[in-house]
């Protein structure tokens, strides 16, 4: 497709022209996939042509495809290990990304090193793409810190738990890129639930007004804990962009190739001064919201089974095999690598020390604060009183 300017944008994908507001009196489930869904690989792994987006993956090699497959498999393996570690009591909580590997790997691999990522708390696959050590993601879920990595090492911000807040940080960061005259871009991840937050609407407004180079990547995984998407919106989410004056597109979130292509397109728009883009990756949260959640209370097994047939990893595997891009050795090596990753993560978590007690008072302020100093001293004296008592025995 040709890159459209914001002003000239035709509501081709953001097809909000059929006014839903005037006719319906009750909200209806947002329309599913076709014909708006950008898909390059069918669930059976067949490559389908797309006149607009093919060019964004035109140069992709078998090695690239194997790389995407490897990323997804290792991310899923890591995720499964983290879930198991929660069940074993090593983590307090885990938010699984199961089912969303294609959306995260496809978008994550579209990024350049100098781009900046603002994740929610479920972007383990994107973190993987950025080079964040997976074990660093587990500190907050184990309860030893609130985020154990330097955001500027990999241009991957800390996980944000209050949903939607980070879309404004992403927008501000993108405004800064513009002021610096750089051609980097920002990607902000959020979900269907967060799309209802005022901060997301405000980030759309600010990014549009300032033409900020930001890609809003919404993983619509159909469920915000127990609330289905129709409790958040009565139009398909990608159509929201139209009202703010920038394009929105819905992509098959279980198709890693399509996610890669669409995100590359959106990033190219950002880099070339065309401002924000909304990408809605239509996917499914295969597991619970977190390990504390019980999805059997609110959704039917049949729904999950229907999505299993669209599994992102099986889809790419089918494509790789039918194109003879892989052999048994590749899968065996990857299997061994997966198990090694699982083992490494398991051992790292078990070896993760509890923080020093005085960490409570660390980094509360950059320039210090008299009250924090005073309370640290009181805490130290209190702790020391036990040592004195023991020493006196």
């Amino acid at each position, binding site marked *: 497709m040709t890159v459209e300017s914001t002003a000239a944008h035709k509501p081709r994908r953001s097809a909000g022209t059929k006014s839903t507001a005037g006719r319906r009196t009750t909200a209806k489930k947002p329309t599913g996939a076709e014909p708006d869904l950008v898909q390059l690989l069918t669930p059976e792994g067949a490559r389908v042509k797309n006149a607009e987006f093919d060019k964004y993956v035109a140069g992709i090699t078998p090695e690239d495809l194997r790389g995407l497959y490897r990323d997804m498999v290792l991310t899923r393996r890591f995720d499964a290990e983290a879930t198991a570690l929660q069940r074993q009591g090593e983590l307090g909580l885990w938010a699984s990304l199961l089912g969303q590997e294609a959306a995260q790997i496809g978008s994550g691999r579209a990024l350049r090193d100098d781009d900046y990522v603002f994740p929610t708390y479920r972007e383990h696959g994107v973190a993987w793409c950025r080079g964040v050590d997976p074990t660093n993601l587990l500190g907050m879920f184990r309860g030893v*810190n*609130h*985020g*154990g990595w*330097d*955001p*500027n090492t990999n241009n991957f*911000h*800390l996980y*944000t738990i*209050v949903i939607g*807040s980070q*879309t*404004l*940080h*992403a*927008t*501000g*960061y*993108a*405004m*800064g*890129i513009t*002021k*610096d005259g750089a051609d980097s871009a920002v990607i902000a991840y959020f979900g269907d639930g967060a799309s209802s937050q*005022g*901060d997301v609407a*405000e*980030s759309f*407004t*600010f990014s549009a*007004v300032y033409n900020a180079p930001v890609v809003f990547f919404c993983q619509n995984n159909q469920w915000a804990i127990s609330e289905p998407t129709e409790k958040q919106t009565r139009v398909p989410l990608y159509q929201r962009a139209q009202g703010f004056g920038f394009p929105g597109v819905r992509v098959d979130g279980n198709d890693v190739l399509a996610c890669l292509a669409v995100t590359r397109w959106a990033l190219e728009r950002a880099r070339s001064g065309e401002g924000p883009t909304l990408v809605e990756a239509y996917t499914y949260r295969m597991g619970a919201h977190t390990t504390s959640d019980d999805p059997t209370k609110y959704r039917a097994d049949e729904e999950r089974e229907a999505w299993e047939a669209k599994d992102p990893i099986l889809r790419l595997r089918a494509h790789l095999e039918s194109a003879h891009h892989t052999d048994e050795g590749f899968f065996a090596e990857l299997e061994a690598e997966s198990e090694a990753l699982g083992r490494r993560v398991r051992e790292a978590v078990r070896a993760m020390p509890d923080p020093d007690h005085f960490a409570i008072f*660390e*980094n*509360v*302020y*950059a*320039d210090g*604060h*008299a*009250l*924090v100093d005073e309370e640290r001293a009181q805490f130290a004296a209190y702790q020391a009183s036990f040592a004195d008592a023991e020493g006196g025995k």
Partner: protein
Amino acid sequence: MAAEKTALAKAINESLRHALETDPKVLVMGEDVGKLGGVFRVTDGLQKDFGESRVIDTPLAESGIVGTAIGLALRGYRPVVEIQFDGFVFPAYDQIVTQLAKMHARSLGKVKLPVVVRIPYGGGIGAVEHHSESPESLFAHVSGLKVVSPSDASDAYWMMQQAIQSDDPVIFFEPKRRYWDKAEVNTEAIPGPLHKARVVREGTDLTLAAYGPMVKLCREAADAAAEEGKSLEVVDLRSVSPLDFDTVQTSVEKTRRLVVVHEAPVFFGSGAEIAARITERCFYHLEAPVLRVGGYHAPYPPARLEEEYLPGLDRVLDAVDRALAY
């Protein structure tokens, strides 16, 4: 030449101008801060001289203003954002409390957010609802934030410089009813650290502690009390978080009595914290309980009732009399 006097609003304007001139990373953001120069003209002329990229008229969305300021700070900028009025800050409260205040700690010190949030606050100007509030305690209660309030033009100039230079987020409460009060501003000499209280009038019988708009009232109360032969010391706290308890303690150890004055409601206000800590520090010096004068546990009233709601000269002197009667 004879020192020229500058209005408090103009002093902040000059302080912002100086920061914009000396540090290319400083930005000014907010509603109507550009062409209009802000509803109180605090940013008057800045956009004309520094351009729309550095003095930024924002959409009317306070959460968006603070949220994008956080993002700009992450990119290396030092945004000074204006919240147009005290009562308008609450759409941004989540971003301030949940994000701005905590990001340094949750990044284990890797991220610094040098953001200044300017809030014209307090009553006494006959304004409509939501334009006269004093929410400083709601911010002082949050670790990770620093909260300051100048009482005169000189402090306004210098404390703004220091707030902008701080690597921590600073909530900068501007006493809007004192915007037009003039004082000498020496732009050559820093008067002292940002978070240090200052004895602005010495006395021996009782200490009045206040900040922002109430410092002037306390000085007037000390003048009135002097006519009755009572010697009041006045401490300008200047900073609510951190709060310089040492200076208050030194004063109270001398005067043995303390009255805290603020416009904010007394209940759970900064006066309560000061009373608790000074009681603990000065228990054997105190001749009277620490008393507080402030707003009531009621919504800020319509303008024609605000003189009854706000601490005035008589209410301060009444509290002084009660403290001296112990």
